[in-house]
């Protein structure tokens, strides 16, 4: 018997490190309390390229916030995230996914 899987969304937000706390605070305020932070080594975008090595400063560097969430709450999440990310560099990407233990999300 295969395990029960439930459709959900996986939201991946790549954001500057100094904004991370603000983003997760905003998520918490919007009632979104499940997420995982991944370190980012470097990247490239419209604002040029950077790499973690060679950063003297907290000012640069990015992290990824990964949030798996029920479909009906995605808009809430994006609104909360967008308010923070709006003026900043970074990327928000939403993917369909399936989760086990759906009651957690």
């Amino acid at each position: 018997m295969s395990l029960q899987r439930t459709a959900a969304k996986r939201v991946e937000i790549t954001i500057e490190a100094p904004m991370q706390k603000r983003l997760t605070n905003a998520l918490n305020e919007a009632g979104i309390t499940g997420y995982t932070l991944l370190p980012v080594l470097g990247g490239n975008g419209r604002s040029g390229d950077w790499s973690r090595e060679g950063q003297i400063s907290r000012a640069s560097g990015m992290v990824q916030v990964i949030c798996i969430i029920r479909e009906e709450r995605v808009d809430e999440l994006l609104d909360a995230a967008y308010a923070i990310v709006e003026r900043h560099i970074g990327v928000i990407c939403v993917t369909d996914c399936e989760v086990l233990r759906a009651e957690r999300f």
Partner: protein
Amino acid sequence: MSGIFELAIHNLVSPIILSFALGLAAALARSDLNFPDAAAKAISLYLLFAIGFKGGVGVASHGIDTTLALTMLSGAALSALLPFLAFALLRYLTNLDTLNAAAVAGHYGSISIVTFVAATSVLESQGLSSEGYMVAVAAIMEAPAILSALWLLSRSDSGATTMDKDLWREILLNGSIVLLVGAFLIGWITGEDGLAEISSFIVSPFKGVLCLFLLDMGIVAGRGIRNSRGSLNGGLFAFGFLMPVISAFIALPVAGLIGLSMGGAVLFMVLAASASYIAVPAAMRVAVPEADPGIYLTLSLGVTFPFNLTIGIPLYVAMAGLYFG
């Protein structure tokens, strides 16, 4: 005058400066030489702890003299006022918009602790002593400039961010300040006894560790310069060299009036002349994300920092020598 050149040369061939140059050269040649970020951060924690602690021990053994409060106050005032001068100079020398000009200005009011550390090394090798509490002055000079920059920004019509509570906490309780001040207090409380216990950790290997750190700073500065080709023009370069000298020139008579020793005066000049590349950029990323780090970081880390390290510090020593001599 020949003293300046001699000192400058002597300063230039020290392992510290040469290590910085090595890092710079490696980065410009696109070598893959680099420090893991954890190592760079660990070294900076070590330096902050050591310099704070030694400053505190200095205060413990020589006592607080009456100039302490005055130096603190003047330091804070300089940090708050220099950004206005920087802003005006930037508007005059360059074509930066208000936003970027304000962001850059904030950096030049604040301080670079590594420049401070390098200056203490130079003073030491010159046999010049200085007030231990200059470390505390360094700590107090980090933040006021940020407020001035934010005020300058708020006057522009570009909808700059108002300060939020989080930003306040981040500025005032940022790790560097807390560690510097905390280690200063520990050094003050435990005094010479405390120093004796840990001096073979924080005193003897200090300069060697500083070499490695400056090697890394050189790499970072070199990469910054390489990546930002184009974003800096002649006017900005001129600003990056002129502003520190002007700041030091202003700080010198202030130091004299307060009654600092010659060594203390040099450090005070160095604080005024140095530009932040840790606390202020972090605050600016949050408050003015539209401002370009390629400008303010490169200017403070890629232009002013090496300038101070190589030419600035001996120059300030010479200036103080003329004033005090």
